[in-house]
Structures are given as C-alpha cells and as structure tokens.
C-alpha cells in the first residue's frame, strides 16, 4: 500500500528522536573541546625523538643519525645532519648523534614508517593533535629540541609498547654487556690490554650526564630549507 514505507521511515526517525534522549548508543556526540575522548594507545600523530632523560634531552637522544628514516620517509619530510664527533650513548658506546634533526610537520603524513624502520627505537609516534600554529612554514618545521621528548613521556602515552621497547633494549644491553664481559674474559685470557668498554656503561640510564651532550644541546639547530 502506498505510504507504508513512508510511515515506517517516520517511525524510525521518531524512535531515534526519543532514543537520543535516553540511549547513549544512539546519542554518540562528544562535545569536543570540553570533553576529550580517550585516545587508544595505538593512536599516532607526528613522530618525536625519544631521549632517555627529561632533564637533558639533547644529551640523551637515542638517535644515532643513521638516516634510515630520512631515506625511507615517503614524503621526504625528515632532514638530518650527522655530527662530526661522537659521544657515548645510553649503553656507553661512542655514537654519532644528529646535530640537526628536523621534521616538516606540514608535509609529514604520520605514516609511522620512520618508526618501523628505525633500528634504535629512537623515533616514536606522538599523540598530539591540537597542533595549530599561526605560522605556515617555520612554525610547522620542528627541530631537534622541539621533537625530543623523554622516555617517561613515551611511557605515559604508550605504556605497553614503551615497556616492551625498554625490555628489549635492556635485554640487548645485557646481551651486549655479557658479550663484552665474555670478550673481556677472553681478552684477559689472551695477552693483557686495557679494557675497551668505559665504566660509564654500567651506570643507570636516567642518571647519565655527558658534557658533550650539554655542548650538543647548546648548539643552535639549523633551520631547514624554507619553501
């Protein structure tokens, strides 16, 4: 009969009209600036650089400027300059560090490929989303200082993933130490020679301070090429 379909439709809208007042499954609006929906742990937006310590972010960057992420980045928004000198990393091993590490967030598409290809767990995805700035170019080009965030922050935004990463790093470090010990033992068995690993390697991560790190932080970051 003509009209049954129309009446059925009207019934559905009436049901929704009433339902929106008492049924949270129907009324799904979140009034955003006042209420912020919880982010899932996997949520990703823009990368950041992990530093071991919040007090000395520049000195404790995990990044060793290997430039893999720069090569793999699909929109080519990462710009890295390697340091000429080396400084000890968290494990105490002397490493190259980035003097310039800049990400153009106006180009970055948060694809997470830099994170996946990084062999050092030094770049991770952030969860910021209120990132408006008044400037179109300069303000969106984040340099090393702006990108560096502490491991504690990483733990805060992604507890499970960060714990897993820390565990893996600790295991790697332990393995390296065992290896070093074994090597040292082997060396001790062989003709004596001064031991290569520095004693700093045994210090806990967070307490690590490096004069070179301080110096590195003082260096002004080079601004990337502007469009």
């Amino acid at each position: 009969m003509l009209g049954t379909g129309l009446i059925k439709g009207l019934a559905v809208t009436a049901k929704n009209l009433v339902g929106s007042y008492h049924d949270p499954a129907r009324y799904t609006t979140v009034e955003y600036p006042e209420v912020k929906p919880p982010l899932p742990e996997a949520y990703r937006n823009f990368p950041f650089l992990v530093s071991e310590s919040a007090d000395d972010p520049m000195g404790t960057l995990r990044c060793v400027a290997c430039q893999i992420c720069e090569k793999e980045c699909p929109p080519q928004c990462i710009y890295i300059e390697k340091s000429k000198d080396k400084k000890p990393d968290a494990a105490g091993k002397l490493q190259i560090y980035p003097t310039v590490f800049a990400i153009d967030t106006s180009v970055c598409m948060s694809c997470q490929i830099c994170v996946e290809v990084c062999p050092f767990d030094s770049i991770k995805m952030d969860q910021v989303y209120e990132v408006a700035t008044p400037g179109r170019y300069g303000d969106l080009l984040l340099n090393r200082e702006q990108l560096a965030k502490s491991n504690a922050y990483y733990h805060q935004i992604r507890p499970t993933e960060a714990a897993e990463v820390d565990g893996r790093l600790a295991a790697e470090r332990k393995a390296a130490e065992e290896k070093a010990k074994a090597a040292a033992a082997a060396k001790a068995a062989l003709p004596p020679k001064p031991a290569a690993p520095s004693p700093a390697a045994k210090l806990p991560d967070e307490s690590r301070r490096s004069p070179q790190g301080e110096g590195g932080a003082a260096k002004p970051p080079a601004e990337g090429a502007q469009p």
Partner: protein
Amino acid sequence: MSLTPEIGGAHVRAVHDEFHGDLLEVSMGPHHPSTHGVFRMIVTLDGETIVKLKPVFGYLHRNHEKLGENTTYLASMPYTDRLDYLNSMSNNWAYALAVEKLAGLAVPERAEYVRVILAELTRLLNHTCLAGFLMQDCGCSGTPLMYAFREREKILDLFESLSGSRMMCNYQRFGGCRVDPPAEWLAGAQRLVDGYSAFLDEFEALLTGNEILMARTQGVGRLDPALAVSAGVAGPMLRATGVGHDLRKVDGYGVYPRFEFRVPVGAHGDTYDRYMIRILEMRESIRILQQALAGLPGGPVMDPKAKLRGFRPKAGEAYGRIEGPKGEIGFYLISDGGPNPYRYRVRPPSFINLTILEDMCLGHTVADAVIILGSVDIVLGEVDR
C-alpha cells in the same frame, strides 16, 4: 523595435539545435554539493533532461603512480591509503598482495584471517557511507547520512585502536600485518559485527521500502550488462547488472574459499539495484566476519622472512588484485631488482566505473544524474590519483 526577451544573460547560453529546441549547458561542479569532491559534469539540458554529459576530472591529480616509482616499495604503502581514503585497509591489502606475489612472500594464516576481517569491515564501512551519501543526494536532509556515519565511526574507532589512524591506516605489510590484533580488539570487533545487523535493519526500515526512494531510483540509470562488462565495470555496479563476478569467488585470494558467503546480483542494473546490492553485500560481509572472527587461528601475523629495510624483490612483474568495496582494485608492479618498482600502476575501480556515467545519465533529469553519480560510488582521490 526589437522584441527579443532578454532572458538569461551572460550566464545562460542557449544552444540552438534544430531538433531539440533550446539546450542549456550547465557546468555542475567542480564545486557542487553532490559531486562528491572536486568533480565536474558539463551537462547539456533540454528542459531538465540530459542530452549530453561530459565528466571532467583530474582536479585532484597527485602523481600517485609516478611517486610509487620513485620511492621504495614500503613507502608506497601509506600512499595507497590515500587513493580511496574510505577503504585504506583494502587498498593496503591489494598492494601488499602485488608485492608479495612479486617477492614470493608467504603470509601467515592468522594474518590472512586478520586481513579478511579488516577488508570486510572496510566493506561495511564503505557501503554504509555510500548508502548515506546516496540518500543525501536523494534529498534526505542528512538523517540517513548521520546514521551511517554513526556506525562508520564505530568501525573507524576499531581501525584507530588497531592501526593508530582512523582512515590512513597503513596497516598491511609485505608478508603479513603490522600489529597483531589483541584479544580486546577482537572482542570489540565481535561486538560491532553482532550489532551491525540491527543497524542495517533499522536503516532499511528507514529507507528501503520508502515509496519515494523506490520511485526515485528504480529504472533510473540503467546499465546494460554487456556494456558494463565491455567497459570493465567491476564490483557492486557490475553485480547490480546481473553479472555475478566477485573476485573473492573468482580468484579465491587469501582465505576466502574457507568462508561460506553468497554473492547477491541484481536484475535491472538501475540505481535501486546498486543500492540494494550494497545492502545485501553488507549482510554477507557480516556472515564472513562472524566466521572469520570465530575461526581466527593463533600464530604470528608477520612472515619472519619479510624484511622492512632494504627490501629488493627480484626482477619480474606481478599483478595483485582484490575485490575492494568499490570493485576490483589492482596494483601492477614491475621490478628491476632495485629498491623502487620500475613500473607502478593502479587499477582504480571508481575511475573505471565512472567512465560509463554518460551512458547511464542520458535521457534522465538533473536530479537523476546526481543520484546516478552517487550510486557509482566514486572517491575522487582514487579517480584522479
């Protein structure tokens, strides 16, 4: 004294035609509420009847294929998200399938199941959105669209909690999936799938039996099966014409042969059939999802042999295709052994489906053209690439 009525003016150019009287040429788009993006139809009207329709596209061209040839295999993956930005999971799969064929990678069983789950969720998402958009084009003041978006939001939340992004998922990898879906995610997916039939019932109660909708869509934009096949039309549009071609059955890629599902086909090939086929496909998708979620095996989701860095497949060519929500989405790759593909080519379903727009629109009115375009289901990101 000339008595010419000054009708029209500069904006209205009357085209005189000996047989059709005065024709009016209207440029619908690129900024028009119902062209689904920056798409333009140059329509020649006799009264309100379309006598000629010329689609103009390319406003969103982004050099997708050339980009793919100049970046590594992996770096193209996030770009495939942006082809058809509603269906990033399916696009990812099609591309991953092509690369896996090229490099001869195996995919663990669990990853195959996860891929099926995500692809079918994507199909639900796409068809739900399309139904909403189509109803909006019919003039439904936003209500069906809002209901569709309410459900779509739930699927997007699932995608976000799994892949980290709502639409640009970038989830599939060569040889598996990036993240293993945790148990609570699977429970959430199960809840969604269980509740989806109820939503579909309500959506159909709102509209499917609606006399106005049936009058608006039945017999409008009829597509001949022979023309559809010769034009390469695929997906729900092809099935609406009565051709039961579904790559999930034809190719049986992934683990689809293990699931029991049916392929609905239409008989008229008109807009109503295209709408209904999508609704029915959603119901079949729910069946597949139930089976896949129930039968999800354990194990890794990544082929241990697959590597991310320094990925160089051996020289050769491969074409990977899947049944995307909009039709056959395929990627054709030629490798010369380097880190980049030598040739990278997309078979975009909405672009190919769009090519027969004029054939469907001729003889119908402007109002029909809008819903015919809506029923083709295009995403301009994929059409223009």
